[in-house]
């Protein structure tokens, strides 16, 4: 027998209660958990970068370009699990040629392209252009080729042109903030607007997605900054790091409040789907939600960061704590996406039963492929940091 069929017969025997016959196999699996996670990291990292530029929080300057390049690396990869998940990936252009204006998902093609091309790439370009011109002159071989191409031929570094670089960069950043909200908010809306699924259907869904995205993005930049500084053997700017941690703390408070509100509201109203959802949370999602998302991903980091606002131990200890907390938060937010996507499909829309889900190792929906999608952005980031090192900008100024 075909191994997939065998697996499904096994799942059939594990059904608890009653599910509609077509609900046996989950339609959205690991790849669809990854997509909101990746775009969330993009949106979050970008918002952190924007804080520096638009709200002039200068203490974050050391992380500005790093955050942008991180966002770019993740955005380049973000669409791939999505296309991989389609059963007809070669028809995916249809989303650009005949988008259905009534479908939230149809936005994907245009918002993705807009954010990539107009927002991220342009913002990075306006920021780097001056240095690309200089580096093109000073370097040789492959790097010279890359720098020259990316100047797009605008070799003018006069004061007037540089002023326009700054103005346009600022303008794009301002436009970029709502664009980032749209890029990730629509994903939340995709889930939040499905009236058929009570685990997904809530007005708060896009907001929760956005705020948890910002938490994950800030945590990511924090971790990346620490790792990159360590690799470069460059001292970490503790003021910047402490500030990032402080923003992370406030963002977790906001995110936690929203998610808690969602659940409290659900418990209080206790409408038709309440019984099956309680069983879901206390049963199949107990580990991924209560332990991983809430405890490991939210409560422990929240309390620890809160304590750190009042009492600051030695620099070395703080760095270790930030690193561990950052990784815990990144894991926790991953499980938040897991709980939304997988959790919403584990219970039947008849509210009479549950199916099961087992993450396989191989195959396009398997853990190994998922690991590739998670590691690939870091590889891209390494290449970007090698080609366009932010710290070289300072050296060039001197």
């Amino acid at each position: 027998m075909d191994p997939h069929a065998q697996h499904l017969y096994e799942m059939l025997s594990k059904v608890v209660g009653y599910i509609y016959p077509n609900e046996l196999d989950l339609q959205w699996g690991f790849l669809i958990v990854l997509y909101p996670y990746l775009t969330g990291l993009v949106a979050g990292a970008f918002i952190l970068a924007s804080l520096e530029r638009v709200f002039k929080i200068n203490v974050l300057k050391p992380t500005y370009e790093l955050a942008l390049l991180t966002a770019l690396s993740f955005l380049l990869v973000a669409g791939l699990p999505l296309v991989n998940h389609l059963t007809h990936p070669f028809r995916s252009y249809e989303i650009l040629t005949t988008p259905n204006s009534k479908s939230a998902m149809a936005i994907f093609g245009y918002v993705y392209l807009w954010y990539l091309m107009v927002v991220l790439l342009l913002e990075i370009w306006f920021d780097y252009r001056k240095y690309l011109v200089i580096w093109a002159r000073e370097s040789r071989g492959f790097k010279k080729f890359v720098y020259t191409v990316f100047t797009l031929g605008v070799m003018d570094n006069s004061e007037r042109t540089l002023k326009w670089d700054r103005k346009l960069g600022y303008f794009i950043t301002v436009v970029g903030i709502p664009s980032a909200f749209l890029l990730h908010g629509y994903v939340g809306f995709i889930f939040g607007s499905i009236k058929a699924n009570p685990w997904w259907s809530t007005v708060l869904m896009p907001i929760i997605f956005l705020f948890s995205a910002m938490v994950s993005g800030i945590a990511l930049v924090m971790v990346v900054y620490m790792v990159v500084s360590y690799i470069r053997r460059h001292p970490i700017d503790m003021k910047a790091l402490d500030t990032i941690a402080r923003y992370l703390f406030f963002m977790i408070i906001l995110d936690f409040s929203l998610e808690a509100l969602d659940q409290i509201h659900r418990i209080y109203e206790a409408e038709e789907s309440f019984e099956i959802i309680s069983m879901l949370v206390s049963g199949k999602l107990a580990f991924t939600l209560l332990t991983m998302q809430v405890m490991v991903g939210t409560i422990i980091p929240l309390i620890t960061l809160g304590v750190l606002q009042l009492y600051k131990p030695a620099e070395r200890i703080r760095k270790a704590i930030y690193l561990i907390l950052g990784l815990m938060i990144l894991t926790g937010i991953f499980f938040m996406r897991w709980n939304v996507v997988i959790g919403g499909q584990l219970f039947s829309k008849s509210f009479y039963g549950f199916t099961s889900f087992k993450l396989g190792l191989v195959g396009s929906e398997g853990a190994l492929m998922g690991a590739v999608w998670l590691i690939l952005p870091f590889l891209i980031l390494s290449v970007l940091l090698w080609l366009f090192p932010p710290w070289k900008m300072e050296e060039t100024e001197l």
Partner: protein
Amino acid sequence: MKKNNQVIKEKGMAGEKEAVGKGGREKSRRDFLKSTAAFTGGVMAFGLLKGTNALVFAAAEPASETGPWYGIGIDILKCIGCGKCAAACKKENHVPEEPWYFRSWVEKYTITKDGEVHVESPNGGINGFTETIPEEEIFKSFFVPKMCNHCYQSPCVQVCPVGASYDSPEGVVLVDEKYCIGCRYCIQACPYGCRFINPVTKSADKCTLCYHRIAEGLMPACFEVCPTGARIFGDLRDENGELHKFLQTHNVQVLKPHLNTGSKLYYNALSQEVR
């Protein structure tokens, strides 16, 4: 108005123009009242007109003005759970045989005296049913055939990002298997569990109301083989048709009315346990 008066005064043709100016103000007030009345009246009339339309089956306007608009009636009191409908559907439409691909299936509800609801649909009902609960414990038991509800405000059509899921001019919800990209958003959006991904076409698949049969004047396969006449198929616009009579003479309900999907599958004797 004020500006006009000023201009006219400035032009110096005082008396006459003042009269016109004043008359202008009066006229404008009358005009305003007239247009408001007309607008309000129009809205009310429109509401009433739409209201009469709404009285029939809370229906929206179908895609085409003429031609049939198909709906389905199912009489739960008549269903004996033989599963012939589900079996015929698979044979007519070459639906894969595995027990997780169904365009139509039958559910058995057994409510025991302690109030527990037991629902099952072994292989969609194709091989029939057995009852494992002892008869003395059974409070009530019945069968519910399920199929695509061919909603006229279908959430599955609404969410398809590319336009592969659509509403035909006759009110049949269909999937263009040559256009579907397989994102499965429609499967998530259907509240009734009617959709699946066909492993052969790799596109979203569901009951088509045997569109290829009704185009030739035949009945969909499941209606054809039902031995008790539990399934009624018909044109909602045909006032002399079977479906019209069914709706008029029975207390009908749709599944999950609070979701406002515009389901055109009307059940008679739908008990409150059915989801």
